[in-house]
């Protein structure tokens, strides 16, 4: 067995295809993903809005507005960065897009000037509406109850939350991670090409080489296991190179549970290989046809796991949840994401258990098909 294992490993290491598809191709794809998605999260980070305020006499008569603006312009997550200037300069800054808008107090009116419509302009308008509404409310209350204005004003600034937000995770949501996790799942299931090869090399009706091995005084299952072991070792090495590249070169976050990430990769690689052996044993067609079927099934699984369009994963989970559990690529993707996002292992273990069941079924199916000792035709 050791003899076959060593030579199979030699063959695999010298076979460009067994290195390209499970390792080089995902590495290239990962770089493309990084290029394509590196700015995706930046759109979700709030950036302080540049706002100009016309410095005039009327503004001095609106001390509460000045206070509200000042409060919104301090701290780490401040809303505005204010520039107090003349009307002409404010207009110039707006034209040059140096500010998103400017405020001008004319008499009792507060006017907002913007050049465009967008999220920043909407935020300024929303802030202003909120201020005007609050000011009107205060004026109304004071007109009816002028006794304790200080008390009212102090309670106005008080914000009370009646609903408490409890996070189930300490991790930040990250929309691009799922793409990389499906990529790893895809690379795991590209190990199926190695598994497919192992069956082709042991089934006498599939290749003259396999016939030659069948004629030798070697138990077929032992020969298969030695070849499978060599393929698995190579594929695991390829997978760890991919993981290291993602973690240390592309800085992809896998969360704090490194041991489980490694365990998931080992099981994912095994599931991928066993899936390939099962397809190869099951499909009684030429090798090219088997490869085409394996590729199609794997890529369909990747698509449904959200590799090409992340929303698909959620659509499947919401509308056809069974399909999410029947898709081993999705199970693997979800296992990685669970490790990153959730503090507990419940969801992760659920995914991994179903994946292990799948892998065992693939192994059993392969064994039942390839255990025959004689062929009806060669």
């Amino acid at each position: 067995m050791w003899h076959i294992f060593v030579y199979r490993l030699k063959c695999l290491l010298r076979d460009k295809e067994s290195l390209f598809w499970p390792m080089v191709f995902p590495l290239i794809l990962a770089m493309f993903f990084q290029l394509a998605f590196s700015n995706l999260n930046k759109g979700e980070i709030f950036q302080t809005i540049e706002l100009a305020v016309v410095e005039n006499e009327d503004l001095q008569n609106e001390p509460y507005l000045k206070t509200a603006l000042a409060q919104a312009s301090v701290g780490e997550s401040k809303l505005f960065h204010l520039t107090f200037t003349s009307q002409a300069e404010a207009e110039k800054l707006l034209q040059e897009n140096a500010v998103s808008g400017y405020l001008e107090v004319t008499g009792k009116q507060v006017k907002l000037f913007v050049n465009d419509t967008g999220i920043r302009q909407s935020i300024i308008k929303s802030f202003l509406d909120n201020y005007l509404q609050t000011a009107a409310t205060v004026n109304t209350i004071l007109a009816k109850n002028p006794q304790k204005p200080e008390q009212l004003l102090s309670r106005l600034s008080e914000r009370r939350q009646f609903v408490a937000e409890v996070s189930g995770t300490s991790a930040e949501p990250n929309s691009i991670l799922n793409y990389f996790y499906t990529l790893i799942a895809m690379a795991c299931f590209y190990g199926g090409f190695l598994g497919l090869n192992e069956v082709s090399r042991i089934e006498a009706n599939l290749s003259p080489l396999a016939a030659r091995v069948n004629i030798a005084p070697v138990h077929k299952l032992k020969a298969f296991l030695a070849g499978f072991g060599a393929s698995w070792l190579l594929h695991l090495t390829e997978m760890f190179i991919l993981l290291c590249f993602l973690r240390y070169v592309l800085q992809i976050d896998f969360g704090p549970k490194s041991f489980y990430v490694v365990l998931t990769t080992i099981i994912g690689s095994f599931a991928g290989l066993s899936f390939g052996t099962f397809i190869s044993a099951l499909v009684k067609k030429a090798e090219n046809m088997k490869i085409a079927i394996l590729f199609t099934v794997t890529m369909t699984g990747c698509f449904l796991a959200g590799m090409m369009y992340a929303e698909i994963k959620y659509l499947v989970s919401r509308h056809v949840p069974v399909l999410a559990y029947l898709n081993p690529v999705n199970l693997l993707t979800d296992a990685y994401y669970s490790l990153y996002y959730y503090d507990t292992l419940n969801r992760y273990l659920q995914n991994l258990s179903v994946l292990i069941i799948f892998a065992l079924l693939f192994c059993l199916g392969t064994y039942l098909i390839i255990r025959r000792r004689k062929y009806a035709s060669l």
Partner: protein
Amino acid sequence: MLEIQGGVWKMIVRVQNLVKRYGELLALDHLTFTIDEKEIFGLLGPNGSGKTTAINCLLALLAYDKGEIEIFGRPMTPEAYELKRQIGIVPQNVAVYNELTVYENIDYFCGLYVHDKKLRKELVHEAIEFVGLKDFRHYYPQKLSGGLLRRLNIACGIAHKPKLIILDEPTVAVDPQSRNKILEGILQLNTQGATVIYTSHYMEEVEQICSRIMIIDKGRAIATGTKEELKAMITLGEKITVESQYVTESQLNKLRALPNVISADYKNKQLIIKSGKGSNNLELVLDFIKKEKIQFGKIYSELPTLNDVFLEITGKHLRD
């Protein structure tokens, strides 16, 4: 008495009433034969006659519908590892790993039979020397010519020094130099004590090296014996060919009437006379040509070939 160990056995292979069907097609039709120790047994037949199917059944690769197969006196099954250890196979299609060098390929296949590393190393070197691939031991198969590749295919099958070697059309698409080398090698292996089963549709090769021949057609054994025995089975004793510009029908009829002449035909400016067994056929024909004043260029006489045997029994040529 047959013994697998102890060194003495006479009958190496016994195939009894072997029947193999592919659906409606009867690939082997009650095939029966035996092979004795140190024979070179030729399985001769046209493409599709059932030679490879018979070999695959013999090796327990193919399931068959009926019959018995014994090798070294024991039933041949897929689990008969002790028997398999004594058998070497050179398949019709070259079956080597393109990712391994010549040396590694031979070592790999030898290692499936021989576990002792030191012994294996010696055997691999011997096999490389034997097939003349010493200068190519570090080459990958893609770099080898068709003939060298066939030699590698043979080396992979014989490196473990099997007692029974099965060569399935080992010279297909091989240059004459490599073909001669292969045939010489098979004779040498036989001299060293191996029993050989050699399948081919090249009658010249089979005639050249085989001590006993079974002619097979449509899955049936149509004749078995030494080449002399096979040729003795047919009426043809001699074929005389005369290259001539013109022969009349009347002259042909007169020829046919000569004693011991089986047939006389004129085609493509060649007069072909087939005679029965006898010692003075050529003399009779020469006398006739002289008497009839037939102009001729070359004249030559041939003894019957295995193709003639096949033709007479089946009514068709071996390579039809």
